[in-house]
């Protein structure tokens, strides 16, 4: 079981209270009439499926019922940060790679998953070698 930090309730809550809602930061074309079918199709149907850092929208459905964003590692399930709608992530695939190369643990101080730190540091060491 995960504990997930809700940026609106300002505390960690049981995973059961949340629901994932797909990729975050999708921008609807401002003028749908003038975009190509391909661009519109991309916007409507095509989503990233990265191995590693991913930004997702989640909803605290049984708590405050607000949507917010999560930066998550899809290989370790580790939640690196959560942040409100309208804000940008501080951890991206690029920053995570740089920090790994410099031997810096990705989510220093920002552990969202109770009890996950020792396990995940081992996993991170394995992936970087």
């Amino acid at each position, binding site marked *: 079981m995960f504990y997930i930090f809700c940026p*609106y*309730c*300002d*505390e960690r*809550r*049981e995973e*059961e*209270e949340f629901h994932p809602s797909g990729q975050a930061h999708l921008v609807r074309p401002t003028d749908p009439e003038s975009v190509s079918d391909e661009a519109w199709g991309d916007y409507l149907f095509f989503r990233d499926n990265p191995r590693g850092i991913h930004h997702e929208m989640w909803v605290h459905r*049984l*708590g*405050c*019922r*607000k949507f917010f964003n999560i930066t998550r590692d899809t290989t370790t399930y580790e939640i690196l940060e959560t942040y409100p709608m309208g804000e940008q992530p501080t951890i991206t695939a690029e920053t995570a790679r740089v920090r790994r190369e410099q031997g810096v643990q990705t989510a220093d101080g920002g552990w969202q998953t109770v009890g996950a730190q020792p396990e995940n540091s081992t996993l991170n060491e394995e992936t970087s070698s």
Partner: protein
Amino acid sequence: MSEAHFEANGGNVAVFDTHPSEVIAAESPLHWSRERGLVDDVAGHDGDVKVVERPFLGHLILRGGAITLDEAVRAELGISLPGKPLGLNVDADGSRSVQWLSPDEWLVIVPGGEEFELENRLREHLGDAHFAIVNVSGGQTLVELSGDKARELLMKSVTYDVHSHGLPVGKAVGTVFAKTSVVLRRPNETGFELVIRRSFADYCVRWLLDAGREYGLRVESPSSR
């Protein structure tokens, strides 16, 4: 049912008193369970947990900016809007409360019959401000849990940490209760409150009875308003 009024808020909003007239009997969300013999009249039953419904209270959902609403609620109700997430402010005698639900949403609970007048006064006070008030009194009900084993009962039912360090007095959270959702409130030292939805009320009653069987739990509710 009273006539709809269109005066408030520049005539843009239809408001009406949702309390039926005296000749029509009101049925609380626990009515179905009462009909099936699961809910007793209030009898001060002795047990390690006591569950009592407070039916027919006035429940209002306020939405809008915190500063605007705070000013109006303090002026019209004499209670300030909880400044922090998960805050619950209760008045001196415990019969009126304002609760944080989300960053732009609060739940006001007042004694039954006061909500229509309060809604009108708030609308008048707020004028042209950007806000919404919805009377949800018919859709949910308040249930009080007290007794030595109330916390133990909740520990079997909710995922939330109900110890005093997790849920101190003056805190209220929306959380999972036996696979459904409730609002769990800690208004005072003596007990807890659950705000349960009408459509899940019978399920919640049956859950409470089952989980509380070992404590001799009974669910009580006043038989009429």
